[in-house]
């Protein structure tokens, strides 16, 4: 082995160490951050919220906890292993989510403090000693009723709940969402509307929402806070959308069309030229025959 080769290998090894160390940068975690405790106790709902956040923000690198499908090459650890759970307190994970380090981005601005704790509850739920110690928020059964005001294109939703004696009373201050059903999901229209003291929330349907061929729209109304008021979804078909005119683009004569949809100018110019050329040839042949006869 020559001297030059030795140097090459040395440099390569050195660069590899440098590269891996830059990704697996050491975490410097202050002691008070390690001992930070969550301000709320974990509940099933909070863990579920954390799971949803994890799926859309963390899973692409860290994989599913405990499955080992994390991308180890970029320094992302499997958060479900017993090893990780024992060596990391809740406060420590919270700090890491906030700060970010090396390959891991900071989520300080992305999540609210509550969201971060939900995320940590979800991660910690893979620890055997994890306990769901908090109490779920009390459910307040509520119902929705819809009525339409045709003239001003307004949908009114009345929220009601039952008092202790089982009598129906209007529900005040509940946030109601209005959706229009679309192909792959429900599109929210307008902002969140809280119900007034009569339990009513209303929304004006904008004029330019495309409906089907008859201008029909499928309206869905529900409470924002489904944990408190239950999953009440009311739907109604309204006729206030703009009418869809189905245009089959393949009916038009276009250059990109098939043989049956050739633009007319192409047809005319092609056949015009072909017929013209044959006519000329025919005329010439005819003249030659006449020449011979002379």
């Amino acid at each position: 082995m020559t001297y030059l080769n030795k140097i090459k290998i040395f440099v390569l090894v050195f660069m590899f160490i440098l590269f891996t160390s830059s990704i697996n940068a050491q975490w410097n975690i202050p002691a008070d951050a390690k001992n930070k405790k969550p301000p709320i106790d974990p509940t099933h709902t909070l863990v579920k919220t954390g799971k949803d956040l994890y799926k859309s923000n963390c899973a692409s690198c860290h994989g599913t906890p405990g499955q080992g499908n994390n991308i180890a090459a970029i320094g992302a650890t499997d958060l479900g292993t017993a090893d990780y759970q024992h060596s990391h307190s809740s406060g420590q994970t919270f700090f890491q989510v906030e700060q970010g380090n090396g390959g891991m981005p900071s989520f300080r601005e992305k999540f609210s403090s509550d969201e971060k704790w939900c995320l940590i509850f979800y991660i910690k739920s893979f620890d055997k000693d994890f306990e769901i110690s908090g109490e779920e928020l009390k459910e307040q059964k509520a119902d929705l009723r819809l009525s339409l005001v045709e003239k001003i294109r307004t949908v009114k939703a009345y929220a009601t709940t039952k008092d202790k004696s089982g009598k129906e009373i209007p529900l005040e201050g509940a946030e109601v969402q209005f959706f229009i059903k679309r192909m792959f999901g429900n599109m929210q229209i307008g902002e969140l509307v809280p119900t007034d003291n009569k339990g009513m929330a209303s929304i004006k349907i904008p004029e330019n929402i495309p409906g089907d061929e008859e201008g029909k729209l499928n309206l869905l109304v529900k409470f924002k806070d489904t944990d408190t008021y239950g999953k009440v979804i009311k739907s109604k078909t309204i006729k206030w959308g703009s009418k869809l005119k189905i245009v089959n683009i393949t009916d038009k004569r276009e250059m990109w069309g098939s043989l049956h949809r050739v633009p007319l100018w192409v047809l005319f110019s092609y056949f015009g030229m072909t017929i013209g050329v044959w006519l000329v040839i025919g005329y010439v042949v005819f003249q030659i025959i006449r020449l011979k006869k002379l």
Partner: protein
Amino acid sequence: MKEKKNPEKKSEKKSTSRRDFLKKGLLAGAGTVLAGGVVGSFNAFAQNGEKIKVLGSDGKVMTVDKSHLQEIGLKTEEEMQVAGREGIPGKKWVMVIDLGKCKNARLCMASCQHAHELKPEQHHINVLRMDRGGDTSPFFMPKPCQHCDNPPCTKVCPVDATFKRQDGIVLIDNERCIGCRFCIAACPYSARIFNWSDPKDKEKYEDVEYNIELNVPQKKGTVSKCLFSADRLREGKLPYCVSACPNGVYWFGDANEDAVTNGTTKETVPFKKLLKDNAAYTLLPELGTKPSVYYLPEKDRLFPFEYEGKSDMEDKNHS
């Protein structure tokens, strides 16, 4: 004139008699079905005695009572071809790609290659590293077929193998393709690939009917391309790449409904408003191809550009 009239009359007679025959046949058929239903309601396992020979999966010939047979709802290749050429009426599919969210996770590519039986080096969708030059920061750009409304590729096909459907999707028919690769040359977005060798898992797909909306089984010597997951759209599902993305890059929807849905968050927003608010653009608009794929510029980035440990284009300045 007389002579001309006669054959018409004859054919009329013929057709009426055929109609009568069909009517009678239908009546008789309905009668049998009704009777069968009545008998069947008395005894669910009544056997009408008619046995049919069936070839089992282990290769043995068995006899099964006809009443126990059930038709599997599989479409024949011809049905798939007709439906695939027609498209879905009243739809105009569009895709919006948010470049600020892409961090080169490449899960879109993986799910696409899995669905369409592609080899690792074959891409219907590819995530490219892009640089706008000067002091700008590089970014990742997923690039599927643009499904142009004025497609240059279908114009050059000599055998009508590649075509545009009424819902805006540009498809290719493996059964018609002769492998001339004119379309590959015509496409300004390099969206098409060629099957130079036998496809992946060729033996596994030998008996599978060709699905024009999935382009599976792939075929050696033919062109393949992104299909906007036409098979998934028929089921009302988002395309493979869109639903595989972990970072919310893709929006997909129907422009006729003016709504697009994010594949990751499943949030649905107005399509034109999304384009307007985010200064959306299309690729190579100067060519007049009218793409159905829109891009949102790479602002408010979720992730820093990082490729093989470097934060700039590795081939930008050689050292």
